[in-house]
């Protein structure tokens, strides 16, 4: 579902963020990307989200070669990707409902279907009944769950998350991770960048370890999917 072939990324400043990176994630697989800050975790996710293009090598997502995607095709490719951010990036001047409905509006889903799907998505993250609230009225953990509801409302085949538990306490972090675990069980490929090693260890999933832009370990726990 996600495949990197010898991907290198060098920024115009000369800094090499990724070096000869190769790995593959199957459909329904869940993996963590970890490493010290500046190891290339965010760059890796930016390449998948088409926020950056690799300097060398190929990135394939859902069978699409992103290196050759035209500029006009980028929005369509992003719609097949769920993105969760550390700071959740909700629109604070809109209700929870409007935030979660936004990707459907962008994708051109019929109005009557939007309501159904927004409620189903909020139900999955345990926030049904909070549609009319403003995001500021929610706790940090709840805000992040709205962010996740927004990421999954279009039922994307791939879900990526950049430090989704960075601002949360351990218990809330565990809850959020359990949510991600549930999505990969229904066939969504999930890739999470995190430096919370204790949490990663408890999840017992595949872990890609980056160091200075190189993949130094690809840990697969026994008995994991």
């Amino acid at each position, binding site marked *: 579902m996600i495949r990197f072939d010898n991907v290198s990324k060098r920024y115009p400043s000369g800094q090499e963020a990724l070096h000869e990176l190769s790995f593959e994630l199957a459909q329904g697989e869940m993996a963590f990307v970890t490493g010290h800050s500046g190891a290339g975790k965010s760059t890796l996710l930016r390449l998948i989200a088409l926020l950056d293009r690799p300097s060398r090598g190929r990135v394939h997502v859902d069978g699409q070669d992103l290196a050759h995607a035209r500029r006009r095709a980028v929005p369509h490719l992003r719609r097949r990707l769920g993105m969760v951010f550390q700071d959740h990036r909700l629109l604070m001047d809109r209700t929870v409902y409007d935030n979660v409905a936004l990707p459907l509006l962008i994708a051109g*889903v*019929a109005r009557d279907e939007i309501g159904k799907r927004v409620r189903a998505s909020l139900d999955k993250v345990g926030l049904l009944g909070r549609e009319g609230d403003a995001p500021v009225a929610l706790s940090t953990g709840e805000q992040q769950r709205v962010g996740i509801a927004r990421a999954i409302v279009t039922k994307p085949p791939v879900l990526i998350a950049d430090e989704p538990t960075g601002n949360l306490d351990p218990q809330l972090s565990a809850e959020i991770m359990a949510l991600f675990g549930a999505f990969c069980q229904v066939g969504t490929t999930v890739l999470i960048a995190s430096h919370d090693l204790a949490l990663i260890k408890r999840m017992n999933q595949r872990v890609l370890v980056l160091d200075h832009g190189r993949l130094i370990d690809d840990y697969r726990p026994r008995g994991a999917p």
Partner: protein
Amino acid sequence: MNRRKPQNRLKAAPPPKPAARAERRPRAGLRAWREQHLYSFFSSLGRLAARPWATLLTLLVMALALALPLLLYLGLGNASQLHGDMRDAGAISIFLKPHLDGAAVNALAARVRARPDVETVVVRTPEQGLEEFRNQSGFSDALNVLRDNPLPAVLLVVPRADGARATDLAAEFGREGEVDLVQYDAAWRQRLEAILAVATRTAQVLAALLGLAVLLVIGNTVRLDLLGRAEEIDVMQLLGASAGFVRRPFLYAGLWYGMFSAALALLVVALVEWALATPLQTLVASYDHRFSVRGLAIVPALGTLAAGATLGWCGAWIATWRHLARVPR
């Protein structure tokens, strides 16, 4: 663990198959396009209404900028009416020697009329001249005192040609024995035409400059709006919004700005017309109502609205063009 145990309620929901998606595309695409336009249409209006004072201030600035060329256009329309009235001034006036009898006058008139370079000849007898003078000059009481009619007979000759040949013709008439004086105001008439041409061109240039100003004001207003909503735009782009989707509400906002300011400009013009109505009526009355003051007609008014909307849309387009070239953070 999560209180609501979401795992238990997750239904297996595979992503829609590409083939099924492609089948529904044409009609679904049109509906989505229509719904997204409706959404932008109303959300942009809502955003203007959310800041009524700022919006009104911007609209007033643009309305005044649009009203100025409109008022010039109106003024010129009325002036050219006056110009049409001056067509008579193209005639050569031949004042005949006093006390020339009617037969001699008519003989000369027939001779002049027979010339191939003359279009029409009107004979104005001294009696007609006195009557006209009495009506127009306001000196009727003073004229009553006169025992004799001091006015000569006049031939009003409209030449076929204009300019130099008409001037030659006038000079030729001057050499006739019965003629006392020939008056031909070609230079004056040409000057009036030139003045009107300068005024028209000035109005066009001003309209273009002020139109550009409106374009820039709307462009800048939309640009500030874009900067204020940069975070929202970034998020939308991350969620896969196309440039068109992001641009659309701003284009509609530009359209509203342009159209509302044009409507306000029409209101300003109506106010100016109302304020000038009484003094203008007095002026027109003094000219024996030979021309009327014309207000803005419906077609130019609709044209103003359309021009305003177009300017707004274009201004917003320019503003969004640059902004959307960026990659979201």
